């Protein structure tokens, strides 16, 4: 179906992104990949721009470490650059890219044994400390509390097993359907259902006190 879309060679495929000229439609992923295969590196730049935010945040939520996100995001897109010529569109481009991200993250988790046993007491303690600090420093309080809330969520995600963490990130952050997740991770839809359910159960257990006060 995608192959039937005519590729406009009158203008570079990336042109719609840098100027509002006569070309109104932005190129879809298929067109960008085709342009890249023909040697148009601007098409690759567009692919990076299109997915960099999602890629970075999937890595951040999965690994919970801001320092690593930049390097790993770069590694993801280098792998994309290396393999894009062989990409067959048997899945959507984003699904293929997310598969690279997920594999990289799982490798990283296993390699560094990042999973930490962060206890519920730890979360509560950190939250109380944050709230205490916020009372003392009124001006900075809002920002600090916001950051603290985010950190608690990211830490809670790190307590999940890598397989549970991956599905819940793709579902909650990427808003992927169960079918899309199944295709991306090459697992059954039934496995997706059960992993999402279990991941949520674990998260709710971890964040019980957090939600009790904030709902």
């Amino acid at each position: 179906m995608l192959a039937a879309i005519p590729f406009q060679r009158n203008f570079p495929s990336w042109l719609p992104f840098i100027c509002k000229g006569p070309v109104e439609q932005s190129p879809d992923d298929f067109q960008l990949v085709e342009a890249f295969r023909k040697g148009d590196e601007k098409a690759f730049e567009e692919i990076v721009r299109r997915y960099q935010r999602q890629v970075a945040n999937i890595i951040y939520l999965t690994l919970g470490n801001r320092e690593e996100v930049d390097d790993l995001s770069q590694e993801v897109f280098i792998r994309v650059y290396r393999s894009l010529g062989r990409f067959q569109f048997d899945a959507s481009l984003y699904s293929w890219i997310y598969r690279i991200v997920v594999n990289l993250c799982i490798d990283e988790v296993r390699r560094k044994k990042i999973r930490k046993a962060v206890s519920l007491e730890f979360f509560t303690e950190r939250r109380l400390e944050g709230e205490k600090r916020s009372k003392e420093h009124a001006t900075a309080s809002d920002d600090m509390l916001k950051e603290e809330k985010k950190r608690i969520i990211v830490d809670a995600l790190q307590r999940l097993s890598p397989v549970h963490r991956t599905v819940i990130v793709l579902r909650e952050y990427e808003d992927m359907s169960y079918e899309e997740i199944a295709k991306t991770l090459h697992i059954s839809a039934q496995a997706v259902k059960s992993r999402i359910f279990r991941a949520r159960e674990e998260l709710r257990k971890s964040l019980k006190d957090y939600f009790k006060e904030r709902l």
Partner: protein
Amino acid sequence: MKTNHPEELLSRYVDDELTEGERREVSEHLASCESCRLSVEELRALRVRIREAADFSLPENFVYSVLRSARAEQENTVVWLSTERLARRVVIVLSVLVLTLVGLGTFLGPEPPIRVDRYLITEPTDTLVSQVLGTQGEISKDVVVYAVLTK
């Protein structure tokens, strides 16, 4: 009671992944169960919190550093591939050379000595040749010629 709460269905309910029948069942249950309504609210809040936590932004020049690294890697690959190709050719040429030398050596080398028993097996033991050669295990062509002439 906990067992009466359709926890797994609630998870799929917030994801809009229920069949029509399941949706009806959950909706009916939610109308009468405050605990499950709270659970649904909590699941939705969890999604909002996760999306809020995903606030990482890459630097403006990220795309250029990716391209730079990708090109550098590609150039290294090209250099490595050409080196590898050259090495393969050298190995092939050397192999051909060695095989040729071995072949030539086999065909042009000195003839191996002739075994007595191979050539004189039919010679009666009381002949002159046998007497001349006696117990010699190996003879050269010259000795054979000499033996024949002197016979």
